[in-house]
């Protein structure tokens, strides 16, 4: 309508077409860090780094935590945190690989994993929104309980996929357009997450609930229900991640996903999402995750020794964040 009249000239309306550009600017530091890592890869291990198979490896490795990171981004933008992701993924993988479930075939297994994940997420969400528990504690309790339950169910053993269910394994070892299907699953989750966050009322409400829950409530948003759904969403992502990890390892196990919560949260925060909620992007989280994955990959290719890797990783995190901060600061200057 008459929008052009009220826009300040020098500051173009960030419409859909420009969103990319803004996104790029916002994540400049991350992209720079990623590029830097790529250059390091090309210089140190030119013959292995830039091969298709290595890139596929990186993406396949990123897929599991990547899917979880998408859910985590929602939860953190919504002002919460989910420590239970790794454990819930493990529980879902164990539940889906019990002999009873396996007897129904791969489709039921996938449904089972997704349902278990979503259910566990909704339960955490219920404790948080209706039980008024602090997210940190509620999801910590869920972490502990889900691992315990997974150990019980599996009798602490690794549960192999039955030969009849090898269709699931094809998700990882098969190739579609030269890529393993799990990479497409990962991509689909990322795209879906982006769309939901940026193009739907659910996403818009997520920012509101995280940014100012009181205001959201008074604006007529059912903050509690929404909060519960956010954790349900995170659980759903854990269920999908469980399918990926089953495909990759051909097993369900209570040990899967150990400390994934830290990696996922770190990726989200490096990606520029605030732990206080209300701000953040899926793109940033995924960039953050790719940086972590690429660091690992480079270390592997270069055969660095672990202790040095850890030290280097610490330094790289600091540098990436300082880079990003610099690029942010130059955009929005602050007072002293």
């Amino acid at each position: 309508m008459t929008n052009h009249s009220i826009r300040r000239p020098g500051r173009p309306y960030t419409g859909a077409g420009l969103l990319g550009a803004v996104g790029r600017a916002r994540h400049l530091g991350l992209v720079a860090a990623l590029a830097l890592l790529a250059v390091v890869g090309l210089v140190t291990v030119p013959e292995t780094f830039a091969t298709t198979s290595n890139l596929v490896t990186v993406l396949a490795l990123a897929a599991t935590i990547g899917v979880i990171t998408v859910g985590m981004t929602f939860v953190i933008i919504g002002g919460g945190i989910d420590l239970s992701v790794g454990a819930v993924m493990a529980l879902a993988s164990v539940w889906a690989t019990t002999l009873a479930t396996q007897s129904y075939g791969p489709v039921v297994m996938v449904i089972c994993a997704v349902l278990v994940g979503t259910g566990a997420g909704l339960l955490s969400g219920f404790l948080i929104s209706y039980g008024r528990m602090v997210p940190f504690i509620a999801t910590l309790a869920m972490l502990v309980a889900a691992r315990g339950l997974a150990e019980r169910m599996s009798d602490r053993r690794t549960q192999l996929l039955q030969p009849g269910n090898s269709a699931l394994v094809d998700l990882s070892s098969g190739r579609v357009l030269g890529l393993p299907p799990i990479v497409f699953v990962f991509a689909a989750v990322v795209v879906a997450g982006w769309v939901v966050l940026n193009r739907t009322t659910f996403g818009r409400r997520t920012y509101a609930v995280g940014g100012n829950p009181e205001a959201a409530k008074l604006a007529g948003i059912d903050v509690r229900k929404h909060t519960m759904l956010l954790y349900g969403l995170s659980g759903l992502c854990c269920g999908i991640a469980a399918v990926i990890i089953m495909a990759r390892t051909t097993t369900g196990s209570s040990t899967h996903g150990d400390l994934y919560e830290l990696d996922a949260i770190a990726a989200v925060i490096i990606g520029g999402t605030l732990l206080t909620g209300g701000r953040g992007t899926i793109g940033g989280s995924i960039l953050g995750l790719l940086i972590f994955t690429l660091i690992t990959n480079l270390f592997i290719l270069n055969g660095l020794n672990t202790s040095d890797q850890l030290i280097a990783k610490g330094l790289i995190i600091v540098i990436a964040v300082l880079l990003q901060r610099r690029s942010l600061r130059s955009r929005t200057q602050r007072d002293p």
Partner: protein
Amino acid sequence: TGNEPQAAVSSPAPAATEGNDVPGEKVVIGFSAPAADHGWIAAIAKNAEATAKRYGDVEFRPVQPTNDVNQQISAVESLIAAKVNALVILPNDGQQLNQIARRASDAGIPVVNLDRVFPDKLSYRTWIGGDNYGMGVAAGHYIGAALKEKNVADPVIVEIQGIATLPLTQDRSKGFADALKTYGFRVTAQQDAQFTVETGTSVASNLLQAHKKIDALWNHDDDQGVGVLAAINEAGRNEFVMVGGAGSANAMREIQKPDSVLKATVTYSPSMASSAVKLARLIAQGKGMGDLVENQVPQSITLASETITRENVERYLPLGFES
């Protein structure tokens, strides 16, 4: 106990294998193992590397150790992509890494499976590892015999496991229980620690409270054993016999002390990593094992679990790893 000057890499002197040690064609050996976050695994990684370095014809390519299966899969993938001549893999979990090992084998890369076994024989060329069940059996026999000798009826036997979710832990416990059964004994209490000193201390100090009188204690791992011993000393308890596991140099020195509760340890030697690298080299170069008649390296080699006591500890000390 990294304070002592590093003992020589624990691998048998290359006497009879002289012929095999002469340089052959150049081979690249990839190596992947869990994160070296405790002494035994650290010794594994060090032994493998040191052994490889002794051969001019071996290019050793270790990848980032990790405790995350997902990452180990990627690490092995990258080794396959690099087309190494042989792979030595100590998987975090044999079943979870089976698929990727199988892929390596299918790609024509011989896999030497170290310690934790892959369920699918098509996934590896040769398996070499310790005898977890046998370890439990050895510990059970030592304790059973000691208690029988003292004529203890209905003894309190406590077991401190390593990481409970590992199949090797379950094997050890089963062997222990089976051996004890032959004496008519059973395990009174069982708790698991994380293979680290500190978890050893906390689990042990709680267990010592739960049982005011203990007759025997088996601790699966000498690394966490340092912590278990610290807790025992702190509580001032010495009424029982303690048996360790793995055979660290530190445990052996402890066994040498007459007043220590640690009377024995059952071996699970990280020297297997040295052997695994040697085997990988031989396989990649198409050689057999010198002492054997066969032209090729055997399909599986199980190390014996030996019991180290004060009587024979001198002999084993040079093989002990520094935890």
